[in-house]
Every structure is written in C-alpha cells, then in structure tokens.
C-alpha cells in the first residue's frame, strides 16, 4: 500500500512541478516567474522526501534540507535584485 501511495503522491508532485514550470514559462511578470521558481523548490523538497521513502533510505534528506535553505536564499537574492538591483550592499 505504502509504495502505491508513494508512487501516486510522487506523480502528483511531479504534476505540480510541471504546472509551476508552466507558470514560469508564461510569466508574464518577473515576480510571477520567481514565485513559480520558489514553488518549484518547495515541491522539489516533497518529491525528494517521497523518493527517499520509496527507496526507504534517509540518505536524500540532506538534499531536501539544502533545497529548503538554498531555494529560499536564491529567491531572496532575486527579490533583492528586483528591489535594489544590487543584492549585497
């Protein structure tokens, strides 16, 4: 049962990511795309966690952890760029 659940959920997450990517492509505005990117990061976390469960190993959790941190940071960077142009000032 668990494996099926994992499979279904993974598919759903992939679908979600695909949709985000669609938004990233069509835009229209840069903040839109950025939001899409950020959401992709978040969904990627879910996907990786599921993958870990599927292989039933915790080896991939660091990846998720890093995405959680670094995805945020890159979003911040782009926002800062949009707002101030110079991200380290």
């Amino acid at each position: 049962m668990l494996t099926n659940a994992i499979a279904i959920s993974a598919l759903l997450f992939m679908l979600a990511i695909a949709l985000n990517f669609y938004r990233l492509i069509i835009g229209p505005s840069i903040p839109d795309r950025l939001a899409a990117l950020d959401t992709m990061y978040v969904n990627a976390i879910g996907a990786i966690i599921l993958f870990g469960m599927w292989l039933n190993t915790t080896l991939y959790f660091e990846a998720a952890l890093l995405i959680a941190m670094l995805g945020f940071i890159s979003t911040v960077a782009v926002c800062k760029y949009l707002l101030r142009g110079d991200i380290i000032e």
Partner: protein
Amino acid sequence: MTLLLIVLLPLVGSLVPIASARSGRTTCAWLTAILPAIALGIAAWYTPAVFGGQLPQVSLDWVPALGLDIAFRLDGLSLLFVYLVLGIGLLIILYARYYLSEKDSMSRFYAYLMLFMTAMLGIVTADNLLLMWFFWELTSLSSFLLIGYWSHLSEARKGARMALTVTGAGGLCLLAGILLMGHVVGSYSLTTVLEHRELIQQSSLYQPILLLFLLGAFTKSAQFPFQFWLPHAMAAPTPVSAYLHSATMVKAGVFLLARMYPVLSGTDEWFYIVTLTGLATLLYGAFFALIKQDLKGVLAFSTISHLGLITLLFGFNSKLAAVAGVFHIINHATFKASLFMAAGIVDHECGTRDIRKLNGLWRYMPYTTVLAAVASASMAGVPLLNGFLSKEMFLAQSLEAQMLGGLSWMIPALATLGSVLSVAYSLRFIHDVFFNGEPRDLPKTPHEPPRYMRLPIEILILLCIMVGILPGIMVEPILRAATAAVVPGQAPEIHLALWHGFNLPLMMSAIALSAGVLVYLLRNHIYRFHRQFRAVNARQSFEFSVQRVVRSAQWGLDRFENGSLQRYMFLLLLSAVIVAAFGLMDVPSMAGLKSLQPLDPVVVTGAGILCLAGLGTVMLHRRRLLSLLFLSVVGMFVSLTFARFSAPDLALTQLAVEVVTIILLMLALFFLPQKTPKESSGRRVSRDILLSMIFGGVIASLNYAVLTRPLQSISTYFIENSVPGGGGHNIVNVILVDFRGFDTLGEITVLGIAGIAIYKLLNRLRLFMPSSDMEGRPWSPDRYPVILSSVSQTLLPLALLVSVFIFLRGHNLPGGGFIAGLVAAVVIILVYMSRGVEWTQRRMSFNYQPIAVTGVAIAALTGLGSWVFNKPFLTSSFGHFDIPLIGDIELATAMMFDLGVYLTVVGSTLMILANLGKVTTPHRPSKEKQ
C-alpha cells in the same frame, strides 16, 4: 678528457675579454689569447698520437634517449682544422687588437670571436652528428654577431641577417639530413655512421640524405647558387672576414664534405651534383672577382671561387682529388687570410677599399706590398708557393675525371679557365692597388701599419713559402693523417714535390699564368662587356623576398586570427566535434548489449522540464534575468537527477553550487547590460545552431553508446578499502579526502587561487551602476527589508549548525567539506544580503583570504603529518567517537584534511561573493552612516 678542453677552453675564453674589459686593450688581447694558446698546446700534445694513427675520443651522456651525447674525436681531419681554427684565430686576435679603433668595444669583439672559435672547434671535433649540428648552428649565430659587429651600419645589419638566414636555413636542411641518416644507421655517433657506407648508399633514403647534407654544406661555403650572402658579409670588420670567410666558417661546408666523404661519396649523384656545383662556383666567383671594384669584394669572390675549386675536387670520386682538396683547404686558408689582413691594413691606413681610388700604394707601404704580392702570387698558383702545389694537383685531377664521357675534356678546360681568371684577379689585386699610378683623393695619407699588425701576415706568408718550397716536411704528415680520415681504405700514395717533370698539368698552369696576364691586360674590355648587364643587387632581392615571405605569413595569419574570440570559439568547437565524430565512426553500433532500464513517468516529466529549461535559457538569453531563472531551474533539476541516480553527494554539491552561481551572476548582472542586443547575423545564428546541434548529437550518441555498454569499474578497490584504509563509510568522501587526497589538495589550491585572482581583479574596478532597473523604475528605497533581516539573523546559527552537521557526518554519510563549506558560505552571503556589508563586517571583522590560505595549509600539513609517522603522503589514521544525534563518526586525519577543504571553500567563496558585493558599497553610503 683533456680532449674536451680543446672545445671548453675557448668557451671559457669567451668570458675572459668581458672580465678584462677594464684592463686596457693590449692586456685584454693577451689575456684572451692565453686560453686558445693552451688549447693549441693540447692539440699539439695529441699530434704524435694522431699521426701514429690513433683516434683519441671522449664521450659523455647528454640525452641518451635522443642518441645525443657529448662525444668528441680527434682524427687527422679534425686535427688539421683545429690547427687552422686555433692558429689563425690567435693571429686574428693579435691583428684585431690593432685593427679595431678606440671606439669599438674590444671585449665584445673578442667575446664573439671566442664564441665562434668554440663553435668551429665543436664542429670539427664532434663525434656525434647531432652535436656537430648544434655547433654548426652556433657558428651561424656567432657569425651573425660578428658580421653585425658594427651594428650601427645598416650594411652590417643586413649582411648579418642575410648570412644568418642562408646558413641557418642550410643548417636546418643539414639537421633533416642528419636525422634521416640516424634513422638509416640507427645511431648518431659519427664513428658508427662512418662504418656504414654500404648501408647508407643502399638505402632508399640515400638521395634525400645526400641532397640535404649537400644543401647544408653548399649554403655554408657559399656555393653557387647560395654564394650571394658572402660578399655582403664583407660588411664585417676585416679580421672577421679574414677569419670566418677565408679560414674557418666557409670551410665548415667543405669540412662537412670531407667528413661525409667516406659514406656519401663514390656515387654518380655525388659526382654530378658536387662537381657541377663546384665548377659553376669556381667560374662564377672568378669572373666577379675580376670585375669587382671593392677590395674586399674581390677577395670575397675569389674565396667563393676557391671554395668552388675545393668542392670540385671533392666531387671527383678519386682519392687523390680528395687529398688535393684537403691540401687546398690548408693553402687557401693561409694565403687568403693573409690577403684579407693585407686588405684590412690598406683599408685601415687609407680609409677606403675602392680599387679605383687605391693606386700605387707601394710607395707608402712597401713592406705590406711585398707581403700582399707574395700572398696573391700564391693565390695565383705561382711556383715555389703553396698555392702552386695544390693547383697542380687540381689540374692533374681534372684530367682524371672521366664521368662526363665524351664531354670529359670540358672539365680540365674549364678548370684551366678558372685558374686563368684567378691569375688575372690576383694580378689585378696587386697591380691595381699597389702600383698603377698614384692614389686618388684618399681620406688619409697611407703609411705602414704598426709592427704587430703585420706580424700575423708575415707568419702566414712564411708558411706559404715554406710549404711551397718544402711541402714534404711541412705538410705531408698532417696531410697524410687528414687524408686517412677522409679517404676510406688505405691512403693513396701522396708525393708532394715541386717538380713532377714536364707534364700536362705543368703546361696547363703555364697556360694559366700567361693567359691570366693577358686577360688582366684586356680587363677594360671585360668591364665594358660586363657593364651592358644590369647589375642585380643580391641584397635588395633578398630583402624583397624576405618581405614577401613575411607578408604572405601575415596574410595567412589574418585568415585565421582576426581578433574575434567568437570566431576562435567556433573554430575550436568545430575541430573538436570533427575529432569526436571521427572517433564515433569507429564504433560499430550505437547501442551496446546492456539491457535498458524502464522509464517511469516521474523521470520523464523531470527530463522534459530539464530540457525545456535548458532551451528556455537559450531562447530568453537576450533578457538576461529571465535566462538566469531558467538556468537555476536547470541547476535544480540536474541536482535532482543526481539524487535520482543515487549520487546524494553530487546532488548536495550541485544544489549549493547552483545557488552560489545564481547569486554570483546576479551580482555581476547588476553591472552589465540587462539585455543582450541583437547583433549576430542570421547566417551566424543558423551556423551556430547547426554546430551546437551537431555537437549535442555527438555527445548524446557518445553518452548513449557508453551507457548501453557493460562497464567494468575500477572502483572495487575503493569500495573494499574505504573502511579499513580510509576509516569512512562514505566512499565518495573517502576518495576525495584520502585515496585521491592529493588531487583534492590541488583542486582546493586552484579554488583559493581563483578567489585571490578575483579579489585582485576587482581591485580598483570602475563600473557604473544603473540607478533604475531595465523598465526605468527607480530602485526601491527599502534597503534591508525588516522581516528578511530579522529572519535571516535567526536562520544564521541554525544554518551554520546544519553546515557543521553536514561536515561532521560527511565521512560516513552524504556530505563533507565541499558541501558544508558552500552551505556556510551561502548562509553568510544571506546575512550580507539582508544586513548589508557594513553591518556584517562590523560583526565579522576578518578577511577571507587568510581563511582560504589556512584551509589549504591545514590540508597540506595533514598530508605532511603522515610523514612524521613515516607513512606516505596523506595516509590517514583514525579513531571512533560517538556523538549524540550525529552518531558514530571517525575523527580521522582525513577529517582534518576535510576541515582544510571546508575552510578553503568557505574562504574562497566568500572572497569571491563578498568582495564582489563590496564593490558598490563605497558608492552607495548606507543609512547606518548618518
């Protein structure tokens, strides 16, 4: 071993004049003379042995792999030349002392001269062809320096360049020939080569070898059609001409002929090429010697003609001819050197070399007149002088030559013609210069030269006469020895004598003498005859051809190198893809035997997004920010791919690097245009698309081919030894910090260097900062959004904890120094972003360069540490510790190494990003200041 000294002493001697430049001209000259004198003594010491038929040799390894060793030999031929080079060299040193004027730097001249002497001695004594070639080119170089000694005269410069070009080119041909010969014989040792006459002459490479060697020889001794450089080399100071262009350097060519005579001669090719060249040179030189108006020009052309004569002699495939050739080498050296010196004296005392002005000098310098007269008589081949003997032999041999069949009579005829001309120009040299009326408007009033300036000439003249009268005693032994080296098999019966009775040769020289006088008397007709030809200036045509070569080279270069990196990139990639494609063509089938893995929808979706993101990056590359967003999607999915295919470490690293890269590009983008203008032509775009598609195709098929083939991995060793050897369970990390620790050390060093280089590049970088973004919106006034700054502050310790955590577990589970370092760096960058440089700097008041350097140092020291316990570099030892929550970890020395990696990564990354961020700070003062 003492044999080496013959070459070494002059080499050392080239330093003496420089050292003793201060201590007066005469002293300098004497000091310089000492070492060659000693070398001459050594040669003399060897002489009995050589005459006794022994062959002193010495050999040291230099580059055995190339068959190149420092080997010298001293057979008869070498000895003869050693005597010439050193003996005449000493005389020249003496002569030059008085010839050179006060303003000429004497030490420089002597240094060049000694260098040349060394080279010359090297050629004649080398026992290894490559070594000989080395010295051969050295003579070209040093002669370049000597001819260009008066570098303020364009004449001298041009002449020197010409000489260098011609002889240097010939030298390269010689090298090719030597390599071929070495290939045939299988050794470059002269001794060995000389034993393989048949082998060489049978081999199919004989013609090329012969041709290349002859090219070398002919260019060096100014044989037709390469003779043109010699007259222009007369721009050199006369001592140089006397030394190089009579006695030594131009003799190197004929020396080569003599040296290779045993192996190369005796074939028809040899006969035809060498004889005809020699004959042509003989006549050409003789004719122009007769009509030149420049004193040294006359001598130069006469030298050419005599070299032709010697070549001709070597051309006849008869032993006696070779003997005559060697003999004439000696004679020519003696009388021609003295003639040059005499001409030098005239030039020196009268201030001109123009024969039309020089007349009747005998009144002013009777003594010199006598010397010159004797020398030129010897050149003309007047009996009782050495020139006569060798000319006799020459004429005799010319009668022997039968190879031309029905036309054989032409050789003696032409030979006689040559000697007729030589008589004529010798006569002219004397009569026009020293007699024949009064001198016309000379710059100076001539008078006898200083005593010691004449001494060298006197000595040489003395030799001429002695040899001429008592050849048997004077030269026969050395001639025998030399011939033994030149002529294979048992030496021919040499009988040097003044009087062979009334015979054809004698008659021929009688004809030559009388006809020569006649020709001289009729010279004006010859001038008139010659004047109708347009004079070709060899130098101009040479310079012109050089220019043409340069221009064509420039043209060829411009075809490729038009300064556009874009174009270079294209060419580079094109060639790369061609190479790769050819590699792929050898692969019989694309797909290997390995069974494929099934697809699953998740992977397909991911792959699709990855590709689309890549394409998006390309399509939107004009709107740079957007393409960055797509780029980060690519990065994320690449790392997901790594995770998917069981490489967690890679996934982590890729993630961190991707974020860092985005931040970096963002920072840079601020200073760069936001949009890329449309400038590449449609043709270029389509061309590039085509190339990149081909490239992608090649890579894809290559990758597929690899993936579908069963692979045998070499990693089993690492897998087995990871725990016992490295004390870590994460094999990837153990490989990084332990097995391949040395590579990692190199890599972090590169990282540190890159960081420092960037730090330097940013130094005093002046950029302009847009005050608004691309839509012209002014920047938001809110510098540090409150929420962001507070959150990032709370996040900081947590994130650093994570980085430490990743670092500590890295040895056993995914993680490690690289990743942890990147994470830490990124987090600190977050603080920079949210709080600004001032704030951060105030709290983290240290530079990052030291951190990076410390990191590299720690890593290196860890490696060295294992030496203390005399283990090999980077051997790791480890013990177990149990830390709650993180679990059992080894504190291995590898851990220390990893710490080094960690610090380096943190340091360099921050060095790059923080410094880049700081660029703007001084220009945008923050609120905290006020």
